[in-house]
């Protein structure tokens, strides 16, 4: 059972940590959007936000990341390892659906071969999430087995209650932070229970997801794919804003005779993703590429790691240039089971 402590406010966490000169990542208003950015003062932060443009995925798995340096000027190429050390970091105020994406990504990057870049960042980061107090029609976390106040992936979950804020201390890292923040006063579990009830009412979009993997398994060539997904225009907006999508490319980028080998975000929705050098492309049509996205999230990944590769954050729906609604595809599938 998690420890419940009283906490002044999310801002107070930022204030304390920045005063201790810790590296803090928090939602910052940037034009019309909110983005997760490093902050130096609590005034830079805006917790009155709905959802940030991108998740904080990029702090663990950056859009572009050097994995080694090389120089080829001489007969013997010089190869230099990239530093795999990252500063202690606190992410404050991310949504539970973003926090829940981290254990999902951990499985990929720490399965079998361990991606040390990812792991080092994860190990040095403490996640302090903030339970949602609002939602829109694109949120569907409850259908993914989560909730607006679910603890998955958080070290501390902050919850706004009628009485103020509660900190649910969930892990060792969370305990360490709680003592750093000097949290002592116990919170009321009754208060927490009431907040959970109101959180559960936030999400109105609900569908049954249990049968989805089974349906996908046997309907690879269903006309649904063409019907619902042909409008996909083949960009990577949905996958890049997705907190769980993790596909990447590896490229060498030299300037003159030296450069870096980099690991960059890549996406199954882009046409070149599986195109062979010969010109042959096994996924030659857009609906096949979008099908891969759904299959990976709701059949392949769950088959291997036991949960959906999706937290229901709804970003992919909000950003889609052609309003291709992933939840609608799932609802359609769900209605056929």
């Amino acid at each position, binding site marked *: 059972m998690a420890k419940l402590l009283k906490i002044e406010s999310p801002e107070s966490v930022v204030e304390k940590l920045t005063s201790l000169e810790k590296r803090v990542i928090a939602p910052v208003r940037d034009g019309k959007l909110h983005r997760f950015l490093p902050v130096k003062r609590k005034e830079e932060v805006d917790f009155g936000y709905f959802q940030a443009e991108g998740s904080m995925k990029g702090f663990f798995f950056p859009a572009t990341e050097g994995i080694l340096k090389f120089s080829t000027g001489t007969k013997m190429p010089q190869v230099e390892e990239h530093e795999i050390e990252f500063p202690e970091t606190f992410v404050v105020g991310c949504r539970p659906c973003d926090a829940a994406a981290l254990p999902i990504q951990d499985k990929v990057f720490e399965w079998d071969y361990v991606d*040390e870049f990812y792991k080092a960042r994860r190990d040095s980061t403490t996640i302090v999430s903030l339970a949602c107090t609002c939602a829109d029609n694109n949120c569907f976390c409850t259908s993914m087995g989560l909730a607006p106040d679910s603890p998955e992936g958080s070290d501390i979950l902050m919850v706004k209650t009628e009485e103020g804020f509660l900190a649910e201390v969930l892990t060792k890292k969370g305990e360490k932070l709680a003592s750093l923040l000097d949290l002592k006063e116990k919170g009321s579990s009754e208060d927490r229970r009431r907040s959970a009830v109101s959180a559960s009412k936030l999400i109105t979009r609900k569908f049954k997801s249990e049968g989805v993997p089974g349906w996908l398994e046997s309907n690879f060539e269903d006309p649904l794919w063409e019907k619902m997904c042909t409008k996909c225009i083949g960009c990577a907006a949905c996958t890049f804003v997705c907190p769980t999508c993790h596909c990447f490319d*590896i490229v060498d980028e030299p300037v003159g005779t030296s450069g870096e080998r980099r690991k960059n975000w890549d996406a199954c929705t882009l046409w070149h993703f*599986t195109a062979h050098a010969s010109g042959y492309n096994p996924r030659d049509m857009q609906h096949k590429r979008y099908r891969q996205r759904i*299959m990976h999230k709701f059949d392949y990944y769950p088959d291997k790691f036991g949960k959906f590769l999706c937290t229901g954050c709804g970003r992919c729906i909000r950003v889609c240039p052609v309003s291709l609604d992933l939840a609608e595809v799932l609802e359609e599938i769900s209605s056929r089971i």
Partner: protein
Amino acid sequence: MSIYSPDLLKVSEVLPETSEIITLVMDFQDGSLAKRFSFKPGQFGLFGAFGEGECALAIASSPFTKGQIACSIKKIGKVTSSLTSTNVGDIIGFRGPYGNWFPLDEMKGKKVFFIAGGIGFSAIRSSLLSVLENRNDYKKVVLLYGARSIDELVYKRELAEYEKSSKIDLIKTVDPGGESKDWDGKVGFVPSVLEELAPKPENSVAIVCGPPIMIKITVAVLVQHGFKRKDIYTTLENRMKCGLGKCGRCNIGKVYVCKDGPVFTAAEIAEFPPDY
């Protein structure tokens, strides 16, 4: 060292195979790794040219040759173009060995049919050399090898040896139109030559590699002749980046070619969704 960091190999030989294909023979630069390194036939590696990138290729040498590996490369894209213009003494990056392998131990006591098309031979050469190394463990060994034209046949030196050898039955063929006047092999596509050959399925296994369409038809011919799908092995090549089961592009359904493959039986492939 991160999982993405390559070991260094020094090119000791560049063997021209065809106008577009070369074989690189490479020595490990790190002495202790040279001693330690081992792989199983069918496994692959990511071969890289610094500044160009990496490319997944089958290790084509014998697992019994220590401290040295070879791979054969066809000039197609960015990385292969760079690798095919490599000179002796150049340094190549290598990550591996990755993936599964042909279960040669399980094939002991059986007839082994190697069937290859074009550069597909490179993916099964390691197995062939391995079987020949332990020749007495196997019954009959047959190699049916074809390419579009005489020029496009790889490992011509070895083919000449095999022709004289009693250890192996070699049937070589070129596609119609690819022959010359003095061509002493067969003329016809690999599956049609296989049809003529009418291989007996009893106590037999087949190892097939070549272009996707060749694999597909060859497997059909073998099945027609009574081969069980589980006794037909092939190796798949999907576009790959990491080779480590992470980058997410080589999957066919639930199967990751880099981790669960590249070697599959025809029985396994029959279960795949049409996504490769």
